[in-house]
């Protein structure tokens, strides 16, 4: 076990896998000499060579499209999108091409591709360096979407993504990069894609979350326990698609109350599917309202500190209070 932050955990895992398997190549903007804007690949162009650490032209559709070609011809490409906000030009290559290759060829071709993209807000990134994109991609059959929120999960899920025969969108929450630290097992362990994880045991209510919101939930849960003895179970979705209904539903059935918390714009966000699943399959187990907290339906977090803060916390301690009200219901 070693203590790391999320950034370091991702860097170390990717580095180790690249050392073990020369089919893995990393491509994206500034991944070479610059080592990526978050320094994930610092020094790698020297270590692995320019053929494996590829500074691409400024063209996201091309990055993903070229990576698909590589995946079709024996490589295991990791396509880095500089910020998740800039993945949109590649929407067609991801949705129409990567995610459908296996289906459309009736299983003849596979597309083992990992797309990494730093997402989420809270780092003064403004409208175009703060977006949540998981809801768009969670809806794409043929694509797996993971969004780990702890160092151990990040490393384990990245290894699973690299081993997966199908395309995986690997989202890295920027606020978690340095703010979240934790123990990471040594060795090349994996964390399975498609399994949610109970990050905190509890009995009074279940909070379902992911990304940086997960940590806001954990924090609120700790404080509620201290302040009022309320016991909140916190489920980390971890994999947006395919969604692990079972872990979520068992927790909700146990506690009888559910709150879904996510940073993305509320309407049509990933929380809609999670809440809807709970409603359909566990409504008769609920002893209180089903609560959903998402970000406001505005394009993204604005730059000015008061505006960004308003996006994250429109009212003081809103998650804490929503949990408390639900527990008291």
């Amino acid at each position, binding site marked *: 076990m070693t203590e790391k932050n999320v950034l370091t955990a991702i860097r170390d895992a990717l580095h180790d896998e690249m050392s073990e398997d020369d089919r893995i190549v990393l491509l994206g903007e500034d991944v070479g000499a610059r080592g990526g804007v978050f320094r994930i690949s610092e020094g790698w162009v020297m270590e692995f060579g320019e053929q494996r650490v590829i500074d691409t032209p400024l063209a996201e559709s*091309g990055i993903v499209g*070229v990576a698909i070609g590589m995946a079709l*011809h024996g490589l295991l490409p990791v396509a880095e999108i500089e910020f998740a906000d800039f993945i949109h*030009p590649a929407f067609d290559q991801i949705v129409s091409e990567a995610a459908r290759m296996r289906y459309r060829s009736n299983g003849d071709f596979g597309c083992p591709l990992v797309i990494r993209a730093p997402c989420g807000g809270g780092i003064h990134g403004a409208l175009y360096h703060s977006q949540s994109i998981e809801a768009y991609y969670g809806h794409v059959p043929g694509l797996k979407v993971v969004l780990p929120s702890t160092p151990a999960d990040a490393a384990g899920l990245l290894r699973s993504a690299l081993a997966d025969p199908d395309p995986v969108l690997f989202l890295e929450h920027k606020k978690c990069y340095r703010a979240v630290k934790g123990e990471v097992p040594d060795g090349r362990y994996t964390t399975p894609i498609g399994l949610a994880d109970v990050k905190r045991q509890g009995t009074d209510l279940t909070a379902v979350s992911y990304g940086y919101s997960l940590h806001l939930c954990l924090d609120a849960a700790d404080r509620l326990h201290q302040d009022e003895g309320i016991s909140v179970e916190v489920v980390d979705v971890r994999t947006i698609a395919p969604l692990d209904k079972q872990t979520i539903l068992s927790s909700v059935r146990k506690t009888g109350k559910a709150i879904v918390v996510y940073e993305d714009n509320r309407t049509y966000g990933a929380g809609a599917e999670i809440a809807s699943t709970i409603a359909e399959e566990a409504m008769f187990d609920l002893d209180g309202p089903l609560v959903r907290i998402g970000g406001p339906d505005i394009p993204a977090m604005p730059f000015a500190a008061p505006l960004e803060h308003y996006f994250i916390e429109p009212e003081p301690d809103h998650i804490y209070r929503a949990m408390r009200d639900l527990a008291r219901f």
Partner: protein
Amino acid sequence: MAARVTESPHDALGLSVDDLLAMHRAMVTARLLDEAAFRQNRMGRAPFVVPVSGHEGCQIGTAWPMRKGIDIWLPYYRDLGVVLVAGMTPYEVFLGIFAKADDPSSGGRQMPAHWGSRRLGIISGSSPIATQVPHASGIAYAAKYRGEDAVVACWFGEGATSEGDWHEGLNFAGIHKLPVVFVCENNHYAISVPQSKQMAVENVADRAPGYGFPGVVVDGNDVLACYGAMKEAHERARRGEGPTLIECKTYRYFPHTSDDDDKSYRSREEVEEARTHDPIAGFERYLADRGILDLPGAASVRAEVKEQIDGAITAAWEAPDPEPESALGHVFAESP
């Protein structure tokens, strides 16, 4: 000047008489398949077909230098001629047209003419135009990275050149000097949109210098000229000198697909004029002039091919449909 024996163009290209006859048969097969598919469409047995007629010269010509089992093919939907050269059979083509379970491209999941076959090295294609262009560059990158001798070829229409993906794919290939050949089948229309509304230039090939590699314009109705251009590009790629963009000027004789009606956007005179440059007729004149294949010979090729196609249609029509629940399969590797 000293007199010298006139060499035929095909000699200079290193093509034997057998090669020429095989190329001719492939062209005829594409044409007759096309006509047969349209008949099936009118009979109500083929809901959707994509015609090739008119493109046989550039397709057979540019496909011919490709090596089976080594090179990689990224055709687009109009490339019946290309996939025949790659090894698809008329029977397999009709399995696709009838959307049968054994359709090698997609098991009846995609529209006909959305080619694919891992066995034949034909990369599965989709409907969105030009998406295969960056794939070609990525495959060529991988081939180079792995030290393979493979050449990648990617075909598309002139309409496809307007898509961002086309630009991004060519740019990447140029930067890395990849072993890939881009072949534009310029038939002057993208469905109904004429070239003048697609681009402000006469030649697509003129864009190649902007990506740092050569662009070549060739008469797409001259199968040997197309062969020659591709052969050179293929060799260039194998020598590690990078990509080539080949533009074949050609014409499509039928509507865009069986869903189209081209009368609204092309005059009948224009189509008739184009038909006077028929690549098959031209090649047959070439072969006849050199005593390689005379008129009766060509007619018997047609008859043989027609028989093969008729047999293929009957057999493909009898083949089983996909099972309904099989619709759920192959979403992921671990799917049912």
